[in-house]
C-alpha cells in the first residue's frame, strides 16, 4: 500500500474509536472502552510507521504526495478537496502524535481508573487524536482550519472534563475563547491567500507564492502575521499564552497529551509548513522569532516562582515552545521539529510523573507541601529525574542535542540572530534552574505527611475531596475527580508508558548527533529543500562548541539549583526578600492576566455596556416599540367601528349604498 493509504488509515482509526466509544458507552464496560481507545491509537501508530516505511522506499525527491477522497466544496471556480498531504514533515508529526498519544492512552487507562466518566474521557481523547492528525495531515488550508478548530474544541472539552469544578469550566472557556481568536486569524489568512493566490491547496499556494509576491510585500506580511495569530494562540506564545497555565485544571493525562506534547506544538508545525510564505515575509518571521524568544525567557522566569507543580511545568512548556517557534521562524525548521519531538517525549514524561505525584498527594499540587518522595515512590522519582535531565539539556540526553541544534543554527545565521542564540542560552540556564528546583523540592528531604503515609502503609493518602485551587469541598461523583488517582507504582500500564517515554527522553537525541548521525535532518530534508534558508548549515565544530556551551550551562543551572534549594535552603528566602519587586513580578506571571484584563476585556465590556445602554435601548428598542405602537394604535382606531350593534352596521351599509348611488347619479348626469 502507498504512504497515502496508510495515512488515511491513521486518520480513520481514532475517529472510529471515538465514535464507537461515544455511541456504545452504555453497552461496553469501562475497561473495554479504555482498551478500545488505546488500541485505536496504537493501531494508528502502527499505520503511521507503515506510512514511514512506504515513504522511505521512495526516492527522496518524490517523497510528497497529495491524496484526495472527494471534493469537499466547490464554488466560484474554487475546488476544495477532502485531501491530505503526505511528506516527511507530516509523517514525522503523525509519528510523534500517534506514538505519544498511544503511551498517554495507556497511562490514562491506569490513572483515571476510579474516575466516573471513563468512557467520556477516552472518547474525547480519541477525538482529540483524530483532530490533531487531521490538522497535521490536511492537504489544504480549509482542512487545516477544520482540524485546528477541532483540537480547540477537544482541548476545551478535556480541560472542563471535571465539569462540576467551576475553576475547570472557567479555564476551559478561557482556553476556548483565546483559541477562537487564533482561529479567526487563521481564517482571515486563508481568505487573503485564496484572494491573492486563488487556491487553498498547499502545493499550489507554495508554488505560486514566490511568483505573485516580492519578498517583503505588505500583503504577504499581513498573511503571515495573521497565520502567526493562529499559531501563537494555539502554541501559547506571548501575548496569547494566558490560557495554558489555567488549562492545567484538566486531568493530568490531558495536560500531558494536549498541553505539552501535541496540540500546543501545532503553531510550530504551521510555521514549518508555511515556511515558503514566511521566507517571503522576513518581518513577520522576525516578529515570530522575537515573540518566541520573549516567551521562552518570560515563561522561564515565571516557572521559577510557581509553587503549583503542574503550572510550573506548563510554564516550562511555554518556554520550550518558545525555542521551537524561534527555531522555525529563523529557518531552523528541522531543528525546531527535532526539539518538538524530543520535547514531546520528556514533557509528556514529566507530566506523567507529576500526575503520579499528585495522585500520592490526594490531588494537591502545591510543591510547598511536597518533600521526600524519593523514599516513597522510587520509580516515579527516577522518571522525574530522567525527564528533568532531558528538559534541562543535561549532556547526551535528548533535550541537549535538540535545543542546541536550534541555537547553533541561530548562531550560524549570524547578525541579530546571534543575540537570539545568546538569549536562548540564558533561557537554558533558567530551564535547568526551574526544573531542578522542582526536583530538589519534591524528591529529597524528610517525607511529607502524604509520602510518610505511603511509606508506612503502602497505600495512598486520602484526604477529603477538595479543589486544590480554592479549597472548596467536592465529592467524587461524575463531574469531579474520582475517589483516587493511581501512581505508577500501583499500575503496570502507567509504568510501561513512562518507561518507554523515559527511553525516548534519554536516547532520542542520538538520531541527530552532529557529525555522527543525521537520521532526522536527512529524513526531513526533502520537505524543506525548497527554502533558501535550508542551505545554512552550522559546521560540525560549531555545533560541538554550542553543545559544550549548552552542557556547561545546563550543569551550572543544576548546580545553582542544588546550591539554592539543597545546600543553602535559606538563600531563596533571602533573595525573595531582597528582590521583592522581581519576585512579585514573576509570581504574578508578569501581570499578563491583569494587562489583558485592562487592555482587552474591560474595554470590550465597556463597549458592550455602551451598546446595551445606548444603542440597544434607544435605537433597537425604539424601532421595535415604534412599530408595535403604530400597529396597535391603528388597530385601536378600527376597533371602535366594530361595536356589535347590528343596526349600526346596517346603517353603514345603507349609507354606503346610498352614497355610491348618489355619486353615480351625479356623475352620470
Amino acid at each position, binding site marked *: 500500500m502507498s504512504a497515502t493509504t496508510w495515512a488515511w488509515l491513521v486518520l480513520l482509526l481514532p475517529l472510529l474509536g471515538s465514535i464507537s466509544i461515544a455511541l456504545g458507552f452504555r453497552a461496553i464496560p469501562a475497561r473495554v472502552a479504555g482498551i478500545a481507545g488505546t488500541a485505536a491509537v496504537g493501531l494508528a501508530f502502527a499505520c503511521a510507521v507503515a506510512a514511514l516505511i512506504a515513504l522511505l522506499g521512495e526516492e527522496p525527491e518524490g517523497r510528497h504526495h497529495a491524496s484526495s477522497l472527494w471534493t469537499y466544496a466547490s464554488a466560484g471556480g474554487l475546488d476544495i478537496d477532502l485531501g491530505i498531504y503526505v511528506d516527511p514533515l507530516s509523517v514525522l508529526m503523525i509519528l510523534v502524535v500517534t506514538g505519544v498519544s498511544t503511551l498517554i492512552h495507556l497511562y490514562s487507562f491506569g490513572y483515571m481508573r476510579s474516575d466516573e466518566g471513563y468512557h467520556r474521557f477516552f472518547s474525547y481523547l480519541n477525538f482529540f487524536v483524530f483532530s490533531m492528525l487531521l490538522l497535521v495531515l490536511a492537504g489544504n488550508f480549509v482542512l487545516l482550519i477544520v482540524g485546528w478548530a477541532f483540537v480547540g474544541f477537544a482541548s476545551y472539552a478535556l480541560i472542563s472534563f471535571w465539569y462540576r469544578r467551576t475553576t475547570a469550566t472557567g479555564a476551559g472557556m478561557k482556553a476556548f475563547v483565546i483559541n477562537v481568536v487564533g482561529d479567526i486569524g487563521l481564517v482571515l489568512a486563508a481568505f487573503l491567500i485564496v484572494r491573492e493566490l486563488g487556491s487553498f491547496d498547499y502545493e499550489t499556494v507554495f508554488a505560486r507564492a514566490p511568483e505573485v509576491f516580492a519578498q517583503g510585500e505588505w500583503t504577504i506580511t499581513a498573511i503571515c502575521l495573521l497565520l502567526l495569530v493562529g499559531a501563537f494562540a494555539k502554541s501559547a506564545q506571548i501575548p496569547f499564552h494566558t490560557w495554558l497555565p489555567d488549562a492545567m485544571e484538566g486531568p493530568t493525562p490531558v495536560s500531558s497529551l494536549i498541553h505539552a506534547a501535541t496540540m500546543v506544538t501545532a503553531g510550530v508545525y504551521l510555521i514549518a509548513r508555511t515556511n515558503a510564505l514566511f521566507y517571503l515575509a522576513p518581518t513577520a518571521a522576525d516578529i515570530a522569532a522575537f515573540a518566541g524568544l520573549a516567551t521562552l525567557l518570560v515563561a522561564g522566569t515565571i516557572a521559577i516562582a510557581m509553587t503549583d507543580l503542574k503550572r510550573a511545568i506548563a510554564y516550562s512548556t511555554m518556554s520550550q515552545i518558545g525555542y521551537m517557534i524561534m527555531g522555525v521562524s529563523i529557518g531552523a525548521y528541522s531543528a525546531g521539529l527535532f526539539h518538538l519531538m524530543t520535547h514531546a517525549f520528556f514533557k509528556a514524561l514529566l507530566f506523567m510523573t507529576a500526575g503520579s505525584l499528585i495522585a500520592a498527594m490526594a490531588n494537591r499540587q502545591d510543591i510547598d507541601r511536597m518533600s521526600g518522595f524519593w523514599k516513597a515512590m522510587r520509580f516515579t522519582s527516577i522518571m522525574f529525574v530522567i525527564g528533568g535531565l532531558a528538559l534541562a539539556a543535561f549532556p547526551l540526553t535528548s533535550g541537549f542535542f535538540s535545543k542546541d541544534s536550534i541555537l547553533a543554527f541561530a548562531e550560524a545565521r549570524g547578525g541579530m540572530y546571534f543575540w537570539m542564540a545568546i538569549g536562548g542560552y540564558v533561557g537554558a540556564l533558567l530551564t535547568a534552574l526551574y526544573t531542578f528546583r522542582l526536583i530538589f523540592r519534591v524528591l529529597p528531604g524528610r517525607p511529607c505527611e502524604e509520602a510518610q503515609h505511603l511509606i508506612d502503609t503502602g497505600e495512598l493518602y486520602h484526604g477529603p475531596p477538595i479543589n486544590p485551587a480554592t479549597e472548596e469541598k467536592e465529592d467524587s461523583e461524575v463531574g469531579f475527580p474520582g475517589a483516587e488517582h493511581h501512581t505508577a507504582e500501583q499500575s503496570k500500564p502507567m509504568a510501561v508508558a513512562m518507561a518507554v517515554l523515559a527511553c525516548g527522553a534519554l536516547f532520542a537525541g542520538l538520531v541527530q548527533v552532529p557529525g555522527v548521525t543525521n537520521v532526522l535532518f536527512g529524513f526531513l530534508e526533502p520537505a524543506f529543500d525548497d527554502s533558501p534558508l535550508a542551505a545554512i548549515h552550522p559546521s560540525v565544530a560549531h555545533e560541538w562548541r554550542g553543545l559544550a556551551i549548552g552542557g556547561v550551562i545546563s550543569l551550572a543551572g543544576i548546580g545553582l539549583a542544588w546550591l539554592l534549594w539543597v545546600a543553602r535552603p535559606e538563600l531563596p528566602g533571602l533573595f525573595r526578600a531582597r528582590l521583592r519587586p522581581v519576585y512579585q513580578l514573576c509570581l504574578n506571571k508578569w501581570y499578563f492576566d491583569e494587562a489583558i484584563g485592562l487592555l482587552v476585556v474591560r474595554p470590550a465590556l465597556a463597549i458592550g455596556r455602551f451598546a446595551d445602554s445606548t444603542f440597544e435601548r434607544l435605537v433597537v428598542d425604539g424601532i421595535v416599540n415604534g412599530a408595535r405602537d403604530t400597529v396597535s394604535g391603528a388597530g385601536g382606531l378600527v*376597533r371602535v367601528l*366594530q*361595536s*356589535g*350593534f*347590528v*343596526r349600526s352596521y*346596517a*346603517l353603514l351599509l*345603507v349609507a354606503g349604498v346610498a352614497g355610491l348611488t348618489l355619486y353615480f347619479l351625479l356623475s352620470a348626469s
Partner: protein
Amino acid sequence: MSIEWYIVLSSLLFAIGATGILLRRSPIVILLCLELMLNAGNLALIAFSRMVGNEEGQIFALVVMVVAACEVVIGLGLIVALFRRRLPLDVDELRELRG
C-alpha cells in the same frame, strides 16, 4: 301603465324596509323588514322584465324568493333558539359577538 309607478312603489317598499331595520330592535320585525326589501327588489325585477319583454328578470325573482326562504329559515331558527334560552329578543343586547 308606465314603468315609473312600479319603480316608485318598489323604492317606497325598499325604503320602508330599510328604515324598519335601522329603527326596530326586535329580530322578528327586522326579518319582516328584510322580506319587505327583498320583495321590493323582486317587484323591480319583474317590472323591468315586463318592460324589456323577456323572462330573465322573473327567473331572478324566483331565485331571490328561494334565498329569502332560506334566510327566513335560519333567522327564525336563531330566534327560536334565543327564545328557548330565555335570552332577550333585542339585537342591541345581543352584542357579545363583537370583536
